[in-house]
């Protein structure tokens, strides 16, 4: 048992770190002048901070067993809301930020209502709301890209530098610790993991699964609202960028579930995955100069991540803690089977099949 664990520590839990190191070494040797620079490091860190915050948003409902495909649309809407309120309605910066977060939370509450109240599969529900949100955004903007506010405070919100890093990276770190604390160290996290792992067992243990699903979606929406504000401050409002962030965020969450604490979605694995993917993409872009690398890399990574996570999970459960043979007697295989695996991925089995 312990010997096996010793081997796993290296290859299993931290394989992402090795791959990351490999990327850095390979691209570092390939184009040292472009890749191995502080500015590359800082720009990757800052650019990916928004995706990472989005992944953190996504992570919590995933832990609870619900997909939130509306994160991309929500973050987009939030950029528009916070900018329009400032430039067209004359709101102050802080009220407009709060409004954007509130709009995000509202979207989450709507998702929660559809998933928990109307009992629509979360995959479908959030796919639907994502589309609706995109429509709402077009109503708000009339299809025109709003102009960002030109105040210094607004730009400093994300671009202020601390030790060379833009402050948005600090926000990410704070949020990551907050999410990690909730998921790993509070009873709330325990309930979320239980609800995502086996909703019926959680229910019979007195966990109000619906309420937690609802809350996880509100969390996700609110965090998207905040990510939207940051994006608007960092890069200016955009009508379309959100959809492009959805996939890398999902890939990171799934890939992250194979890292650090394999078999469950977790904060540090997700962040590790974000930066491993980003480093790979950045390196390839610098080497090839091609823009399509981003999509290609993230798409392949998502599929590979989900396949790998499922494979690891099945292997993990197939390995008995100790086999005393009794369970086999009635002839049922000890393996809980693929439907359980889908649950372990915190994905409702139907949704994961469709995904």
């Amino acid at each position, binding site marked *: 048992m312990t010997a096996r664990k010793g081997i796993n520590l290296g290859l299993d839990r931290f394989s992402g770190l090795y791959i990351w190191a490999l990327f850095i070494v390979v691209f570092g040797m390939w184009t040292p002048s472009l890749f191995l620079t502080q500015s590359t490091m800082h720009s990757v860190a800052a650019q990916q901070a928004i995706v990472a915050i989005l992944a953190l948003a996504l992570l919590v409902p995933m832990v609870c067993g619900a997909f939130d495909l509306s994160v991309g649309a929500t973050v987009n809407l939030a950029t528009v809301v916070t900018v329009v309120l400032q430039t067209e309605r004359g709101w102050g910066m802080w009220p407009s930020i709060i409004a954007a977060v509130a709009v995000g939370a509202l979207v989450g509450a709507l998702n929660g209502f559809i998933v928990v109240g109307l009992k629509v599969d979360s995959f479908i529900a959030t796919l639907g709301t994502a589309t609706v949100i995109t429509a709402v955004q077009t109503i708000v903007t009339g299809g025109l890209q709003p102009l960002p506010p030109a105040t210094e405070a607004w730009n400093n919100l994300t671009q202020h530098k601390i030790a060379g890093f833009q402050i948005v990276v600090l926000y990410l770190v704070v949020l990551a610790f907050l999410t990690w604390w909730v998921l790993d*160290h509070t*009873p709330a996290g*325990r309930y979320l993991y*239980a609800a995502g792992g086996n909703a019926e067992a959680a229910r019979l*243990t007195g966990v109000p699964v619906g309420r937690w699903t609802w809350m996880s979606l509100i969390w996700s929406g609110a965090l998207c609202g905040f990510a939207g504000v940051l994006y608007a401050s960092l890069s200016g409002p955009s009508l379309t960028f959100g959809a492009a962030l959805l996939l890398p965020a999902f890939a990171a969450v799934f890939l992250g579930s194979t890292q650090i604490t394999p078999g469950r979605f977790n904060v540090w694995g997700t962040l590790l995955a974000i930066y491993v993917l980003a480093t790979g993409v950045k390196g390839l872009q610098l080497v090839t100069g091609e823009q399509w690398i981003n999509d290609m890399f993230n798409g392949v990574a998502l599929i590979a991540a989900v396949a790998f996570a499922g494979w690891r999970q099945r292997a993990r459960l197939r390995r008995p803690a100790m086999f005393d*043979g*009794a369970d086999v007697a009635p*002839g049922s295989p000890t393996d809980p089977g693929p439907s359980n695996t889908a649950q372990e991925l915190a994905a409702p089995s139907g949704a994961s099949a469709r995904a």
Partner: protein
Amino acid sequence: MTALNASPVPSECLGEVVLEVTGLSKSFVGNAVLQSLNLELRRGEVHALLGENGSGKSTFIKILSGFHEPDPGGLVKIAGSDVPFGDAEESERSGFRFVHQDLGLIESMKVVDNLYLNREFSTRFGTLDLKATRQRARDDLARMGLERISPDATVRDLAPADRSGVAITRALRAGSAHPVNVVVFDEPTATLPDADVQLLLQTIRRVASSGVAVLYVTHRLDEVFEIADNVTILRNGRKVASRPVLGLTRRDIVKFLVGDEFEEARAESDAIEEREAGEAILEVAGLGSESHLDVSFGVRSGEIVGVAGIAGSGRESILGCLFGATRRAHGDVLVKGRPVKAGSPGDSLARGVAYLPPDRKARGAVVSLSARENLALGDPMRHWRFPRIRRSKERDDARAWFKEFGVRPPDALESAFGTFSGGNQQLILLAKWLRTDPALLLLDEPTQGVDVGAKARLHHHLVDAAGAGAAVVVASSDADELAALCHRVLIFSGGRIVATLEGADITPRNISIHSLGSATEDTNS
């Protein structure tokens, strides 16, 4: 193609031996589940196979269907030729067909599609084919005497007996490349309402008279007398009787089923015999639900009450209903004098009610979480001191329970729950609930799929918990278990409590007799 394999065999063939089983044994990890079984089935007969849970009859059927390979030395012959083991296709080729309790129909599809799904017939592109298929369905159904079923009806809309009929028709459908010799019915009536049972029995009789042999597995003795020509009874993996039904009484069969020697099982319960009558913990008054009628009983502190009954008697669902996992139509459930809401596990838990559901992987545990986390899930707040759950305390806690309950391996606190063996999983779940110090403990099939050692430990801890003042209700299909554990056993039948056994009357034999509904004939022995 038109040679319908299930068409009547020439009448001179009826009665010829079609299935010969000799010296069939099966053991799992040195544990003999089936011991040198011999059995003969003849064309045209309905042969009932009886046995309590764990008697080896499901193992036998799984060998026939090619799921299990028997121990070397056994032989299964169909119409004189050996059947290769461990291969479902070979089993079908030899002429075995199986109709399980779970019919395996696709409820949302039409009868005709269910019948020919996956067959050469399914490729129908034009109207002409569709018509032919439908006609084929009509013919096949008619052959089973099921003209009443329309091929275009959706399976979901059919009466339960007709759904079974469709499954039977599918098993015996014409155009199968391999002739049907033996049809095995595995508790086909367990979930059927009484009225439907008769319809199904008619169909089964018709199947037999077409010249195949029918092996009929059931828990319901009435049916044996109604339909079977011969009966074979298994107990603890051995055949204890195989004879014509004619001349047997119900009492004989029950005696074969349960045997005589069970008194050693009561050793455990003697320890709890001298107890004071505690305060009333659970009171159930006039409880009604989908599967229960006017159920009333009470459980006191320190008492272990058993719930017995055959499948479909209401035994399987009563605890979930009390706990509030499922809906109740009417009646009251009071815990310590206060009503427990239906449909709200949280409310029940707040009142000190713990519920161990029967299927631990599907409903009892989060297999992906660690043993420690599962153990703590009943009360994760215990080691929460802002700002975090004290993991080391939680680990100490879990380690102590592991030690107390003898969970193996003792240091695997952080292993995923799913990696433990069945017995250890169940011990962990029992520990999870005892840790919350419940006033009322509801256990559904607590030792299903659990090895003997873990079973004894589970029982021991239940007795301890009752000794410490908990009220315990155990629903089990295992009469030995109930006899070993309980102060009182409630026998369910048709959703009602039909008998209550107390004291010396609680024997596995009595439990079986009452559960099987033969109480009028033989109340005590």
